[in-house]
């Protein structure tokens, strides 16, 4: 890659010192500026001029070796003198170092590459320019000047800009970035102590002293030979930076000897001149585009950059260096480093793109992002070529580092960010990026104005329509229809023509529609986001008649042809209903809508839709007001909104609807929020899924801007961004917010918008998964977290029945923050301790739970339970959950199977009561194993021979076939059900024989036990009691009593008294149940009473009553 070259150049540049620095500066600006076309053009011109000299010389070695020293000396001195004093010294050092080292190492290390190598084709322009510059300087100052002048005018290449800046403007600091770059390559170490900040912008006049010259000379001679001062500085730097090779090259090019050097050196030292390495690439890119405005460039250059740690895959050597350098960096934060968040000029980061990665030291990431956004910068999550800066914290992901490296993105830390904010002029000054941003802004504004005008036109049109004669109306409508179609295709380009003639006086009637209605999209182009989905929907609808003709056999291009129904799903407020209506309207369908406010039970769906599905719209045959009949209106589309809103009273509605979807001849559009709900399952194969996603900020912004513009509300784009992000891209809510804001404000500022979106934040009950993710992995317990104890306890109450179970299931899956400072065995011990604490707290919580859900019903302990079982354990083990898959409480499943087992044991015990006095624990422990070997094992070994004996044994203990299965199921260890292999023949024989014979019953049958049929069924009381008993205890009790008293009499009348008893016993249990239920209800606030329990209780009571009555 060009990196080598760059390094060379850097070396050369260092020789020239000024050049590299500028380059550094330039790259950022160029990056920013890339978008701007102007600059690019200039670049070309510059390149043409300048390149001639430098391009050929691009190879750094050349410059360094031969020409650079001399030419550089002069040039640099001039530059420095004129432009920026600060960097000069450091630059020199760096240059020297770079020169020496670059040729060797540069190719290897990527960062080095960026700096040293001439940038690749796109970005190379910069490098080349750099090279050229030095060259030019060396050769002819006049030429250079000319170039510079040109550059200034055109703001051509970065180099040019740099030159200009240095020479002409003299204001800008020549940043030492280049130098740093150079050094890096030499060492190949990622970290360089690039001089982060140019000392200040404003030592405008650097006098080119002998430093430059010296530097050059020194360069030529040796790496570090520079002015003495410089040398010292260099040495120190080298030590600091990466003693081995990675001394961050501080590339400040300002050549002033004494004063500046002194100042610069410390600053350089302190500032870990990280920028150089990656920045060079950027610089190159920038150079290609257009040279930055010198001042801005200076600022950019002056921003201390950090050498990002090399990504893991890098060579071990490099790695080490990197780490050291990094460490040095972190150890000695730049002078600017302080937690004070600076205030800058409004919009000063305009056009810049930032990526935050890793753990920042003084800022929370959100804070940092908010900061950038406040000043008009853009924040993205993943670094890319377009990224201007990466704000790097510790522990950045290797992937990101890799990207940073390959793209040569400038990395800075918080302090660099602060510095940027502090120093950049309002609106980003006239930097390239800002200019580009401005242009974009302007374009957007124009677009908005256009849209607004369009909207106005439309409105007028509509009013006109209302006023005009019917025929006219019809005509206009047709027109409009055409228009719309055009618009859909061309993003609403061509409305003006048709609407123009329709303009009439607009009535000044107060418009009391909601904004959400008023500004509902009227063309497809106005729908924000989800374009492809909308297109698909339209295509499907358009092709529907054909699909009907082909009987849905042809799938069509996108596979939608076989579906009779479409289901649109996505979060609220993103335009699902709007899109469906609009598309249907544009395709000329008559809309029949049904939503959650209509009852949609199975019956009504079936009957109601039958009327719809087989009919055609009357609008196709008649029309009022003398309008022509539109044949197209015969078509109908059925929109079922809020399908997931079918709930109580809509029983069977979903199934019926799904059935309708399978045979409808009318297109159906279903809309729901959550497609994954189990109740939406019936639609799985009969509908065409169209997931709608939340539109991006960019999608929504222009629309909102348009609305705000139309309403005369001034909202800067970054405020709108904040609103949109705050509402999670809910378009409707943003419109609502803007409309509310308009009530008492004419303009909205960033903080206002932020607080508004905060206040409007939708509070939704979190799902268990989110809860546990938040409490365990969400950093709520991090030192920087501002969450209060109350908020954490509130989390528990989001779902007080599941949250603590979720925590218990997942508390081992974290990487506890508390243990993060330990390593090796210590860490293991610490982890054990934390887990121990957490576990004991969870079990404490279980004690509390007993008091809440047990017999005492102490609901006032709920907050205590929250603290014990949820917050406190989380406080120990909270930490990153990366790589851990959050599980659902397995307790629930285990608990229910445990209860089932218990019930089975109880049943067995109940049956055996006449023969054995053991309680159920003893039955389980002593009897069941023996029974197992006598029954199951015997069957397994002896086959069908053993069947009669087994049945005899069972009869003697009054065990039923169900009990046999239960015993089989209860087996553990070697008795495990899975390990038992009974011949199927033996099994069949057993079943047949058992069913043939009649078996003694110890009492009237309970539960699932086989029963002598009809008689029992006739008795309602009995059955009810039995049903009730399907929760354990009751059954047993019933059975027991029956056994004791009833014996074998199967007579109904005999049994009845037993029933009473059975009923009587259940009472207490039932009461408990009811209590629980009540408490449940109270707790959940919603009536989530489990119907089963409620019914059971009710039945229990009834049966009691009846029993008594009969008595």
């Amino acid at each position, binding site marked *: 890659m060009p990196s080598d070259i760059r390094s060379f150049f850097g070396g050369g540049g260092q020789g020239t010192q000024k050049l590299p620095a500028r380059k550094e500066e330039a790259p950022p600006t160029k990056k920013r500026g890339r978008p701007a076309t102007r600059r690019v053009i200039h670049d070309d011109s510059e390149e043409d001029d300048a390149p001639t000299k430098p391009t050929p010389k691009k190879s750094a070695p050349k410059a360094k070796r031969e020409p650079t020293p001399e030419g550089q000396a002069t040039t640099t001195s001039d530059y420095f003198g004129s432009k920026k004093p600060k960097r000069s010294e450091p630059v020199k050092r760096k240059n020297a170092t770079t020169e020496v080292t670059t040729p060797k190492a540069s190719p290897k290390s990527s960062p080095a590459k960026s700096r040293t190598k001439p940038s690749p084709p796109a970005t190379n322009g910069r490098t080349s320019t750099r090279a050229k510059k030095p060259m030019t300087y060396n050769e002819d100052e006049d030429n250079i000047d000319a170039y510079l002048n040109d550059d200034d005018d055109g703001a051509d290449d970065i180099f040019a800009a740099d030159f200009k800046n240095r020479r002409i403007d003299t204001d800008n600091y020549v940043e030492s970035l280049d130098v740093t770059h150079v050094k890096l390559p030499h060492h190949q170490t990622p970290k360089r102590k690039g001089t982060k900040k140019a000392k200040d912008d404003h030592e405008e006049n650097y006098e080119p002293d002998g430093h430059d010259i010296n530097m050059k000379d020194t360069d030529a001679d040796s790496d570090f030979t520079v002015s003495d001062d410089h040398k010292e500085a260099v040495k120190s730097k080298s030590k600091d930076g990466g003693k081995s090779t990675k001394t961050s090259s501080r590339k400040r090019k300002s050549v002033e000897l004494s004063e500046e050097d002194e100042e610069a050196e410390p600053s350089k030292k302190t500032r870990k001149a990280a920028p150089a390495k990656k920045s060079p690439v950027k610089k190159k890119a920038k150079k290609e585009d257009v040279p930055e405005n010198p001042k801005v460039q200076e600022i950019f250059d002056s921003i201390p950059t950090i050498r990002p740690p090399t990504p893991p895959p890098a060579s071990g050597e490099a790695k080490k260096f990197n780490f050291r350098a990094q460490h040095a960096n972190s150890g000695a934060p730049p002078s600017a480093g302080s937690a004070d968040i600076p205030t800058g000029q409004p919009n000063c980061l305009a056009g810049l793109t930032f990526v935050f990665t890793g753990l920042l030291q003084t800022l929370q990431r959100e804070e940092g992002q908010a900061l950038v956004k406040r000043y008009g910068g853009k924040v993205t999550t993943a670094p890319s070529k377009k990224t201007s800066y990466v704000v790097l914290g510790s522990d950045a992901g290797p992937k990101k580092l890799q990207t940073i490296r390959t793209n040569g993105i400038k990395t800075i830390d918080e302090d660099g960010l602060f510095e940027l904010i502090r120093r950049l002029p309002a609106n980003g000054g006239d930097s390239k990026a800002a200019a580009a941003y401005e242009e974009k802004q302007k374009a957007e504004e124009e677009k908005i104005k256009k849209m607004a005008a369009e909207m106005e036109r439309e409105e007028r049109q509509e009013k006109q329509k209302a006023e005009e004669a019917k025929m006219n109306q019809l005509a206009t409508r047709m027109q409009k229809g055409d228009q719309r179609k055009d618009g859909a295709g061309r993003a609403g380009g061509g409305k003006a023509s048709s609407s123009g003639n329709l303009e009439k006086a607009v009535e000044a*009637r*107060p418009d*009391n*529609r*909601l904004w*959400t*209605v008023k500004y509902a999209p009227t063309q497809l182009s106005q729908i924000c986001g989800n374009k492809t989905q909308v297109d698909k929907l339209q295509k499907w609808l358009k092709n529907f008649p054909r699909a009907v003709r082909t009987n849905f056999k042809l799938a069509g291009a996108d596979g939608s042809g076989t579906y009779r129904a479409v289901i649109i799903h996505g*979060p*609220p*407020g993103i335009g699902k*209903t709007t899109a469906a209506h609009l598309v249907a309207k544009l395709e000329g369908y008559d809309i029949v*809508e049904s*939503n*959650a*406010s*209509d009852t949609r039970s199975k019956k009504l769906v079936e009957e109601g839709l039958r009327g719809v599905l087989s009919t055609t719209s009357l609008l196709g045959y008649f029309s009022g007001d003398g309008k022509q009949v539109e044949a197209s209106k015969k078509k109908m589309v059925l929109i079922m*909104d809020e399908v*997931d*809103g079918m*709930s*109580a*009273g809509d029983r069977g509605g979903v199934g019926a609807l799904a059935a309708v979807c399978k045979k409808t001849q009318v297109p159906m559009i279903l809309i729901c*929020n959550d497609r994954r709900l189990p109740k939406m399952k019936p639609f799985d194969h009969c509908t065409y899924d169209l997931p709608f996603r939340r539109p991006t900020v960019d999608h929504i912004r222009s629309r909102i801007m348009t609305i705000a513009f139309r309403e005369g509300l001034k909202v800067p784009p970054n405020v709108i961004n904040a609103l949109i992000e705050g509402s999670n891209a809910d378009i*409707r*809510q943003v419109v*609502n*917010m803007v*409309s*509310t804001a308009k*009530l*008492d404000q004419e303009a909205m500022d960033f903080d206002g918008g932020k607080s508004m979106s905060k*206040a*409007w934040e*939708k*509070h*939704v*009950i979190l799902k268990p998964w989110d809860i546990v993710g938040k409490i365990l992995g969400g950093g709520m*317990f991090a030192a920087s977290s501002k969450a*209060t*104890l*109350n908020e954490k306890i509130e989390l528990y109450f*989001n779902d007080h029945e599941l949250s603590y179970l979720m925590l218990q299931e997942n508390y081992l899956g974290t990487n506890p923050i508390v243990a993060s400072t330990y390593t090796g065995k210590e860490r293991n011990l610490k982890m054990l301790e934390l887990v121990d604490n957490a576990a004991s*707290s969870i079990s*404490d919580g279980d*004690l*509390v739970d007993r*008091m809440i859900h047990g017999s*005492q019903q*102490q609901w*006032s*302990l709920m*907050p*205590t339970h929250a*603290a*014990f079982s949820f917050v*406190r354990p989380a*406080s120990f083990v909270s930490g990153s959950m990366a790589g851990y898959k959050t599980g659902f409480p397995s307790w629930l499943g285990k608990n229910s199977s445990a209860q089932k087992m218990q019930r089975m044991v109880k049943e067995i015990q109940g049956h055996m009561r006449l023969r054995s006095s053991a309680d159920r624990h003893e039955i389980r422990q002593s009897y069941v194993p023996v029974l197992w070997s006598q029954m199951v094992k015997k069957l397994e070994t002896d086959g069908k021979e053993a069947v009669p004996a087994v049945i005899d044994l069972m009869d003697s203990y009054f065990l039923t076939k169900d009990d046999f299965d239960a015993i089989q199921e209860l087996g553990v260890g070697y008795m495990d059900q899975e390990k038992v292999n009974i011949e199927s023949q033996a099994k069949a024989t057993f079943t047949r024989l058992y069913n043939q014979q009649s078996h003694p019953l110890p009492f009237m049958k309970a539960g699932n036990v086989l029963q002598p049929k009809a008689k029992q069924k006739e008795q309602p009381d009995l059955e009810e009691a039995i049903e009730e008993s399907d929760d354990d205890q009751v059954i047993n009790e019933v059975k027991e009593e029956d056994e004791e008293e009833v014996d074998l009499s199967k007579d109904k009348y005999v049994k009845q008294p037993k029933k009473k008893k059975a009923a009587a016993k259940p009472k207490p249990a039932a009461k408990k149940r009811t209590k629980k239920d009540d408490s449940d209800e109270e707790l959940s*606030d*919603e*009536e989530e009473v489990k119907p089963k329990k409620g019914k059971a209780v009710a039945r229990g009571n009834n049966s009691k009553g009846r029993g008594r009555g009969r008595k």
Partner: protein
Amino acid sequence: MAQGESSKTVHGIKANPNAGGSNYELPWVEKYRPVYLDDIVGNTETIERLKIIAKDGNMPHVIISGMPGIGKTTSILCLARQLLGDAYKEAVLELNASDERGIDVVRNRIKGFAQKKVTLPAGRQKIVILDEADSMTSGAQQALRRTMEIYSSTTRFAFACNQSNKIIEPLQSRCAILRYARLTDAQVVRRINQICTAEKVEFSDDGIAALVFSAEGDMRQAINNLQSTFAGFGFVNGDNVFKVVDSPHPIKVQAMIKCCHETKIDEAMDILKELWDLGYSTHDIISTMFRVTKTIPSLSEHAKLEFIKEIGFTHMRILEGVQTFLQLSGCVARLCKINMKPSLFIIKK
């Protein structure tokens, strides 16, 4: 009917402040319920917006959420009254948790009301007020979704709720969400002073302070306490108020917890004894301790959790029936022990 009720209250409110003595039997909360938005205390910014809405009409759908007693229902009622004036009875449907608001009511009654034609001036719409909307089932809320949109030209909805997370997201997306903050002490004081003057209540400053403190930003509770203190003692001072309010003074409890944190067990015990002698029940004291510990600012979170652990266990024991002074003393002692050196508890021979 709901409409009737609400209109009655309107009547009452209007009449009472002026009528004064003749209506003395009315709770002051009702008697002094604001009639106009101007009278509403606190949350000025939001109220200002509501005033603009009241003036200009075109009310958006709103959700007002906040703690009890801070004027949610009142502001909606005021807004509706100011918007609709005489048509209030016709054009307002008010449903609260005491009315059935199942899905059927939404589908029939509310939808029917939304479809109803009421002649109103331009910019005015019918208003459906759903008080305590957080107690509506999600099914009923689902059924409101399209209704709110389809009939938005003639009907607007206003929800009042304590927890906005009980309102389903789609409804929140359709509404302007206004969050009411707790009233500041100064706001409560001003209003209470007005009422005292109007009712000719004699009071001392510490009485007012006690009222404000016990109310914790809940205006309704402050006024109720004022009235009961006045009715019971005829004079409002700190002691009387706390007799009426009957809960351990959180400040005292906080001081006690702080003492425990600083291992000053004697002082902590003194405070506990003082509270005990005032006759507070063990339950009250322990649950106040829990609440105070949760929010006490001077403790670290870790310390809070440790304290809560002890308090929680004591709470459990108390609920199991051991409600003695000794129980509380033990709790306080254990709290102190948390921060003392373990070595102090080793008996030396």
